[in-house]
C-alpha cells in the first residue's frame, strides 16, 4: 500500500491515490485533494463531502450518486455540476473514502 504526502502529512492511499484510512482525513486534506483534481470547493461542495463522510461512518460504505441524492438531499443534476464528469469517484476521492461499490 503506497503512502503519499497530502497537505503536509503522510497518509496511506491505494494505487490510484484514494485514501484508505478514514481517520487520516481532515478538511485541509479534502481541500488539497480537491485542488489536485481541479475542484474549487464551495459551501455546496462541502455539504456533499460532509454527507459522504457521515454516511460512510454510519453505513460502512461510500454512498453512490443515487444515495447522495435520496439520503443526502442533493439533486443529481447538481452533483454533475459540482463534480463534473465522474461525480461519484470525485466526491469519494475528495472525502478520503474508497470508490463506491454499489451499481446504482
Amino acid at each position, binding site marked *: 500500500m503506497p503512502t503519499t504526502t497530502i*497537505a503536509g502529512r503522510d497518509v496511506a492511499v491505494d494505487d490510484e491515490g484514494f485514501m484508505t484510512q478514514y481517520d487520516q482525513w481532515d478538511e485541509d486534506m479534502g481541500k488539497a485533494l480537491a485542488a489536485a483534481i481541479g475542484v474549487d470547493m464551495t459551501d455546496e461542495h462541502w455539504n456533499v463531502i460532509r454527507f459522504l463522510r457521515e454516511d460512510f461512518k454510519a453505513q460502512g460504505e461510500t454512498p453512490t450518486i443515487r444515495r447522495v441524492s435520496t439520503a443526502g438531499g442533493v439533486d443529481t443534476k447538481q452533483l454533475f455540476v459540482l463534480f463534473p464528469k465522474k461525480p461519484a469517484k470525485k466526491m469519494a476521492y475528495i472525502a478520503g473514502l474508497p470508490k463506491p461499490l454499489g*451499481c446504482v
Partner: protein
Amino acid sequence: MTATQDMIVPSFDDDDNSYRKLAIICSKGNLDMAYPGLILGNAALGEGVELHLFFTFWGFDMITKGRMERLKFTPVGNTAAHMPMALTPLPGMTKMATRMMQKSMDALDIPPVPEFLELIKGSGGHVWACRLSADMNHLTKDDLWDGVDGIISASDFIEMTDGAQLLFI
C-alpha cells in the same frame, strides 16, 4: 494549500479528449429485462459517458404512462427461476414473482422504473421513443413519460449514434 509533488492523483479522464458515447436499445417490457439497460446506462453517465436510450417494441412499456409503473416479471419459460416449469403458468404466479422481484430491488435501494428514468434524465441521459412502435400502438408523445426527448425514426437513431457503442437488450 498545495499538494506535494509525490502525491498520487487518480485520473478522472478530465483531459481525455476521446469522447465516449453509449446507446442502449431497450426492446423488452418485462420488469426483469427493464433493469439491465437502466443500470448500465446510469453507470455510464456516472463515468462521464454520453448516453442515449432508445425504446422500441415491448420496451415501449417502460416509457408509456400507465404501464411503466406496472411492468411484470414472469417465471414462465424461464428456467433460471428455478421452479418446476409446470407450476409457472398457474394463476397468481406472475403477480407473486413480480412482487418478490420488486421487494428484492427495493431492499437494494434500486428505484422503480419511473424513478430510475428520472435519475437517468437528471444525470444528463437522453431518452428516445421509436416512431414505428408509437404508430403501432397508436400512441403520441402525450401518452409517453414526460422525460421522453422525442419520437424518432430508426434512421434518426442510426444518425444520432454515429461512433457510439451499442447495446441491444
